[in-house]
């Protein structure tokens, strides 16, 4: 498929997802199982991107104190858990990564 067409479809799908409940408010309600599932969607979808980046930075499993992405990610997770502050989480995470890359 032509890449422009692919992106047009990807954009359309994304818009329709975002418009779903906003556009149908009051006229249609999603089935109960779907509403129950929604809570887990950001967790599951984003974790599917987070874990491989932290645990497999070069494509192979790398569970070690010498893996800067794993350690920096865990530090950022701790900051996010304690502070709930996005700014702080990203800032500390990047600084930790740079420090670890330089040090390890």
């Amino acid at each position, binding site marked *: 498929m032509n890449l422009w067409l692919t992106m047009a479809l990807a954009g359309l*799908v994304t818009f329709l997802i975002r418009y779903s409940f906003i556009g149908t408010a009051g006229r249609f309600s999603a089935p109960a199982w779907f509403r129950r599932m929604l809570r887990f969607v950001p967790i599951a979808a984003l974790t599917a991107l987070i874990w491989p980046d932290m645990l497999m930075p070069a494509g192979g499993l790398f569970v070690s104190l010498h893996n800067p992405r794993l350690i920096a990610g865990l530090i950022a997770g701790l900051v996010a858990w304690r502070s709930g502050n996005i700014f702080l989480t990203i800032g500390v*995470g*990047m600084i930790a990564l740079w420090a670890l890359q330089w040090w390890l």
Partner: protein
Amino acid sequence: MSTTPSLAGATPGREFASGLVTVTPMLLGAVPFGLIYGALAVQAGISPLLAIAISSIVFAGSAQFMITKLVAASTPGLLIVLSVGVINLRHALYSAAVAEKLAHLPARWKMLLAYLLTDEAYAAAVRRLESDTNAAQRHWFLFGCGFGLWFTWQLACIAGVVLGGRIPQAWSLDFAGTLTFIAIVVPLLKDRASTASMVVAGVVAVACFALPHKLFIIVAALAGMAAGVLLERLAGKAETPA
């Protein structure tokens, strides 16, 4: 850094400005992430014009980042669309959360705000939307959050496309994306079901990483959702006798 917007006698302009201010912390993640998206898109063989257009057409950091990897891996178009759909399905949650607050607006407002409804805009606007003070103008706040992010995102992506390979890899700017996701996911881990959802999605993603066309993303996301629903159902049965 979370600014509580001043609501007294707020005009549309003030609500919009408050939204801009409130979304600012998110830009720390969005700018490096947009830069690296632009660079990766060009490296993946996407034309500069399309790479920039995608930022407006799809307008979703995680999905755009994934698209560069899928295109680099020569993934068929339909699978790219499907992967984007699964990754962005989470926006239905945000749509459901804000729908009631926007129900009174005309369709053009609903479409505009739906288009701008990203993780960051939602996270920045959710507290304002839940406050009923000056409720008639609060959509301007969401518009401010969404527009601030959109505008910055476009600039960062364009800069990334222009700079391309000149951004040193040693800076590891792509990690800013992962950190943004961590900052969004961790506060959502409130109970056993949500934690199980994360662990299952993570383990499945790593275990299925070698699947062709980056299918591990779809498989892991669906597995994580299923695990969360299942555990919640089990916990619900144990706690509340029907």
